[in-house]
């Protein structure tokens, strides 16, 4: 800020908006000449490793023939299988089943975690009542639930959705509780000063302040949902990507198994990218280290 003489002379105050101009410009100037192309190239950097892997896979299967086809089928073979599964509508059926389960199970689990996490974060008595029990449950491995869920809920959709919901619940819950507890007491005081109701304190201060934690929890929870989905589908199902894996194993078709694995990886990444975009949009306000360029 330039030092203006009128400060020293105690002249009438003059609006400072103009002198704010340099500050008022967030870094909107693009990178220097040639930088834009480079920036776009960098966006593709994430493809380098998968591409290398693909080339290596191709070489060891199609060129050097180091692996038998019933052990590791070549990428060409896997691609053909994928095309067949796609045109027969089979792939669509399995992906649809799995995606539907994940979305429903995740919504239930994350929704419950949102309600319980906020309540536990807000009130210590509720924390004392719920948290020890939930922390104990959290440490039960996912597969340990499967026999009981099958016993109680049958072999249809309910046990699968429940398992996925369990997978989604804990990461969201744990992150949300610590998020609520790190809300700046000083900001809460501003809320008291303006006489906010308890409800307004939650949605105008606590929730926005907790958003970074909530979104991190949602991302981990969604990832867990996919893990738990496969655990559920491996055991009892007639449809879904987990079923494709088992089916491929039973019919000695490693190419089908690889299609399932690749589709799982792509779907998982797609879901995560969507949440990442949401994160980027909603958390523009954070003033944090973004990593070096």
């Amino acid at each position, binding site marked *: 800020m330039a030092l203006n003489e009128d400060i020293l002379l105690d002249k009438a105050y003059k609006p400072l908006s103009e002198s704010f101009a340099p*500050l008022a410009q967030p870094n909107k100037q693009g990178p220097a000449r040639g930088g834009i192309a480079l920036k776009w190239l960098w966006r593709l950097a994430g493809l380098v490793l998968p591409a290398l892997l693909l080339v290596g896979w191709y070489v060891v299967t199609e060129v050097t023939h180091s692996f038998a086809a019933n052990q590791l089928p070549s990428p060409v073979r896997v691609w053909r299988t994928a095309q067949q599964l796609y045109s027969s509508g089979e792939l669509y059926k399995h992906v649809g089943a799995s995606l539907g389960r994940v979305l429903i199970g995740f919504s239930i689990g994350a929704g419950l975690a949102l309600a319980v996490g906020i309540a536990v974060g807000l009130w210590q008595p509720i924390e004392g009542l719920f948290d020890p029990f939930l922390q104990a449950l959290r440490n039960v491995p996912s597969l340990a639930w499967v026999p009981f869920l099958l016993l109680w809920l049958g072999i249809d959709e309910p046990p699968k959705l429940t398992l996925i919901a369990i997978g989604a619940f804990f990461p969201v819950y744990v992150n949300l509780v610590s998020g609520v507890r790190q809300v700046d007491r000083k900001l809460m005081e501003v809320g008291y000063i303006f006489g906010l109701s308890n409800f307004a304190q939650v949605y105008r201060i606590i929730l926005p302040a907790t958003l970074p934690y909530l979104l991190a929890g949602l991302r981990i929870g969604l990832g867990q949902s996919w893990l738990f989905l496969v655990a559920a589908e491996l055991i009892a199902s007639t449809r879904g990507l987990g079923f494709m894996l088992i089916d491929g194993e039973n019919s000695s078709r490693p190419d089908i198994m690889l299609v399932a694995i690749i589709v799982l990886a792509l779907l998982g990444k797609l879901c995560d990218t969507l949440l990442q975009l949401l994160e980027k949009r909603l958390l523009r306000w954070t003033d944090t280290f973004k990593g070096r360029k």
Partner: protein
Amino acid sequence: MKGSKLTLEAVSKYFPTEATLAPVVSDFSLEIEPGQIVSLVGPSGCGKSTLLRLISGLDRDYAGRIEVAGSAVTGPNPTTGLMFQEPRLFPWLDVTANIAFGLPAEHKNKKGQALVQELLEQVGVAGAAKLLPRQLSGGMAQRVALARALASEPGLLLLDEPFSAVDAFTRMRLQDLLLRVWQRYQPTLLLVTHDLEEALYLSDRIVVLTDRPARIQHIYEIEVPRPRDRRHPELLRLRSELLGELHLVNSVEMGETSSR
């Protein structure tokens, strides 16, 4: 917006320590007329900020009587504003939304929007209306905090060392700004400060407090008319008197410490 009268009568506040209750404020009485500017100065940790917290209603645990505009303080009151040492802006809201945060619930309408626009102009941040707090300098953030405090149209505005975290030139500008909005909206101002020049430049009265527990040691009436020249001889004279007085307070404190 019109200034509220503030009355403190025999106010005492204790902090619980291990064995006993340590008095922070003891038998404190003060009356401030509507629209006056009063500064509290005194040694660090003497209980000035505690007094502000009591008056604002943030801390309800005290003995005695505190009245703002004739009604006893029982909790945060929409007509009493408090501006902190730090801006305490909500980082996820832009400047406009931060100011609008102070609007009373029934004002989320056109009238409220108009007031926010006016305050943006008044505190000189209209050019930054859409910026996020992380993009603001310290002085600018404090302007926004002042506008937010004014958005609730407070009759009494409490300021807890509001300009202590900015550089000297920005501070002088902010003091002028405070006087300008005070002239326009006429709230009663009660200011805690460590800066004697600030107290002298702004106040109608300066209340010098003793070390903890806070009691009134002396009240100075500043009769120099506004706008004041910071170099006015009367202000300079009062300044050296105040320095003497505060030095006395400090030396008593030091004497006590060394005799312990």
